[in-house]
Structures are given as C-alpha cells and as structure tokens.
C-alpha cells in the first residue's frame, strides 16, 4: 500500500531549523508503533506530536491478532523540538502504555528504497 493509496497526494519537502548545526535541512518523520492493543494509543501519540507542532500527514493503522500496528507519516516544519528529544518523549510514552514507539528520519527509508 502506498501513501498515495491513503489519500495523500504527495509528501512536502519542508525545512526546519536544525539546532545542532544552525542550518536549514529537510525533516520528515516516520513513527512506527507496535504493541498489545488498548484504548488511547493513537490519542497519546498524536497528543505529543500536536504539543510539539509536528503535523501528521497520514496514519496507517490496524489490529492483527490483538496487536496494534501503526505507521504515521509526519513533518516537522513548525516544530522547535530536537528530533532526539521528540524520540525520547515518544519512547517514554510508549513504555508507559506498553507499546514500542520508534521515530525515525524519513531519509533512511528513501535512500534504501529509491534510486
């Protein structure tokens, strides 16, 4: 299934202020969440993203054998938080609700699967 199938026309290559190097770079994020299903997983993840001005582009989510799977596409043009700090917040939230939350820069997927 492509992101296009999810109703998203295209990804926006937006730029953010990178606090590490004080220069402008692109920043697109992919958040994957895996774990036993319970009420409020999406709410708790998206609240952290919203609180940090991270815009959600698309969500793909399903339940398989009682296990919750979600892949969330986001961009962080308005966000002031450093990626490593956002990763930590999401990881800690995941631990609190018993799911594994992984937040990655989208470039790693792009380089591996696009020529």
């Amino acid at each position, binding site marked *: *299934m492509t992101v296009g199938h999810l109703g998203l026309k295209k990804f926006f290559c937006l730029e953010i202020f990178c606090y590490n190097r004080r220069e402008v770079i692109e920043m697109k994020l992919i958040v994957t969440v895996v774990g036993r299903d319970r009420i409020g997983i999406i709410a708790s993840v998206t609240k952290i993203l919203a609180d940090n001005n991270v815009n959600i582009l698309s969500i793909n989510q399903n339940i398989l054998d009682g296990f919750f799977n979600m892949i969330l596409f986001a961009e962080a043009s308005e966000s002031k938080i450093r*990626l*490593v700090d956002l990763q930590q917040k999401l990881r800690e939230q995941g631990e609190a609700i018993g799911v594994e939350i992984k937040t990655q820069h989208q470039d*790693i997927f*792009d380089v*591996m*699967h696009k020529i």
Partner: protein
Amino acid sequence: MITIEDILETNRMITVNKLDVRTITMGISLRDCAHPNLRDFCRNVYDKITKSAEFLVKTGEEIEAEYGVPIINKRISVTPIAIVAESCKAESYVPIAETLDRAAKEVGVNFIGGFSALVEKGYTAGDRILIESIPQALASTDLVCSSINLASTKAGINMDCVREAGEVIKRTAELTRDKQAIGCAKLVIFANAPEDNPFMAGAFHGVSEPDKVINVGVSGPGVVKHALEDLKGANFTEIAEAIKKTAFKITRVGQLVAQEASRRLGVPFGIIDLSLAPTPAVGDSVARILEEMGLEACGAPGTTAALALLNDAVKKGGLMASSHVGGLSGAFIPVSEDEGMIHAVSQGSLSIEKLEAMTCVCSVGLDMIAVAGDVSAATLSGIIADEAAIGVVNNKTTAVRLIPVPNAKVGDVVEYGGLLGYCPIVPVKNQWSSEAFIARGGRIPAPVRSLTN
C-alpha cells in the same frame, strides 16, 4: 513513493536481521605533527587527534538516534606511525602508542589504528623501531591497533619481515598471556593493505589521503541470509541477483550515514567500505549465508565457490549505491567473530587449510584464528608467507590475524567477549617445520602480471 512495506522491510532489517553501520572511522593525518623531540611529537599528536575528533562520537550517536540505525563503532585511523615518528630521536615508540591510547580514550572512540609500518620493499630506521615496539605497545595500551604491510603485488614479499612478524606475534602473545593473548587480536599482517580501510585492527590513514576524512564501514550478513531464505531451490543467477539487491540497500544506508557525518563534522567523505562484517551473535554470520546456499556445513566442498559468488555480488550491488567505494569491500571471514564459523570449526568441517583457500576469494584473509601456544614463530611466518603470496599473485588484499594462545591446546576454547567473540583452538599442521624456509630471508620478487595461467 515510499510504501508501508518498504518501512516494515527496513525496520525488519535493523531489528531482526541486525543491519547496522559497523563503523564511522575518521582518518587523521599526523604528517604535520613530526618533531625531533619525542615529548613534543606526542603532544602534537595528542592535540591534533583530540581536536579533530572532538565531536566524532557525539555526532555518530546523534545520527544513530535520528535514523534509527545502530552505528556500532566510532574509530580513528592515523598516518602510519613509523613514517611520522621517524624524525624523533627515540629508541622505542611505545610512548607514542600510549599517547594514541590516551587521545582515543579522551574522545571516546572504540579503537585507534595506525601503529603501523609499510615495509613491503624494505625497512627504514623508523620501521624497525616501530616493529620492535609493537608487542610492548599492544600490551600497555587498550585501544591501539597495529598493522604491518609486508608485501604488495608491485614490490613482492619482504621475507625478512615475514620472519620478524612471526616473532612479533609470539612476543605479543607472551606479553598479553594473562588476557589470552588479546594483544594479537589488535595486530594485522597485510599484503596489499588498502590506505582507506575503516575496519580494525588494520585501519591506518594512508599518506596520499587528505588531512582528515570520514570513511564508513557497513555490515549486514543477517540481511543477506534472510534474502536467500526465500530462494530455496533457486539457481545461482537468482541468488546473485538477490545478494546484489540486498547489498545495494545496505550500502545506501552507509552512504547516508557517511554523508551526514561528513556534513555535520565538516570533514570530507572518503569512502564506503562495502563489507559483510559478521559478529558472534546468532543471525549475523557470513558462514550461515554460505550454508543457506545449500552447503550442509561451512567448509564442505563448494564453500570457496559460494564465498566467491557472495563476495562478488556484494561488490556489484554496493558499487552503484555509493559515490565512492574503497577499503576492503567484500565478505569478511573471521573465525572468532562469526557464530557460524565458530560452529564449523568446532564440529571439524572447517580447517585452517580450507580457510586459506577461502581467502583467495574473500575480502581479507586468515582472521581472528586462535591457535595452540606451541605453534612456533616460524610456523606463523610460514602461514603469513602463504597468505601474502595469495594476495600478491592475485592482486588483492590478504591479511593474517592469528592468536597463538600461550598454554592453550587443540580442544580448548578461548573467550574474548564482545565483537571479538570466542574461538576453539584451530589445529595447525606444525609437526612439519618451516624453520629453514623462513630463515632464508630476502625478498620474493614481484610476480609477472601476464601469462596468468
């Protein structure tokens, strides 16, 4: 457009198949550190390394976190010390090794390579002092790695150094006997050593390299094995295609990490080393890839052909994925660092003679092989001469990293822990002496490069 399947595949490679970037290695030239006074020279070396690599580890950790791909090691390679220390008035280079060790600890890297000499055609005074200093240098430091290049296709084999190298290995083993001769794990004897290799223990920063450079070594045997698991009964054309595609994906990750590290550190990108570097962890083994191709055990007839295909396909797939490829680039076949190799040696399917044949087609040589403590220096030199001959005649890098463990016998197992792993003592045919052969010394001439039958 990136798909859900792509995302799941990448994350499966990382979490299940142990895809990682094995090392970001910063090469640092020490040519501007030379000084006749040893103390001033050491201060120059310490200052240059700690200043150049101040942010190396932190940057590596940031990239690792942001992209979610493990970067196992951050390392430094320096100009061969025999070259830059030669103008020092010193009788031993052990204090320089200790300086390198302190600098490496200060910046937090895992290893520092370059306590090295390049003597394929002959020795200078600095080369002699360095080689004599190796055993004590490796015994009195934790992170320093050493190498000697004693042969090349253009120069032939320096048999004086071959003799000396066997003795150096034995002395290093003796001085580190309380740690099962671990000093020998940090010493590589090369033929045709590459000047931009990011992998330890053989990394050094060649004299033709820029002042500083970022080289990255990728890994991923588990990913290749997984790709082959779906190809039961497929022919070798399909096997080679699958390995190429996988190597491409692995290398692209390395290229991304290298470019990011280069940009953030303000240091030019050098090369990607397209190597399949195994670890002792289950699921991260080159030997298991060979077995996945249909061999009952690594070492069975067909193993060399399987490795040749793997090594070639890895290069072909990786070459297109990176703008600059170099280093050792291929499949490593260390014994103690590969769970499948350890198993093969333990069950007797893999011998040192078969490993020697495999080094004709792998990326390096006889690597991380523990042998009995009573194996003589001349026998070690004989093995080194054989391995150098394979490299010189076939125009490829070969290397020897043997560990003659004092008091250990065939049947014993030595344990080093971490990425160095553990190794059953590998039998060597040392009941027949190489003494008189090795005692001759001199040089084996460079081989003819035509009439190649």
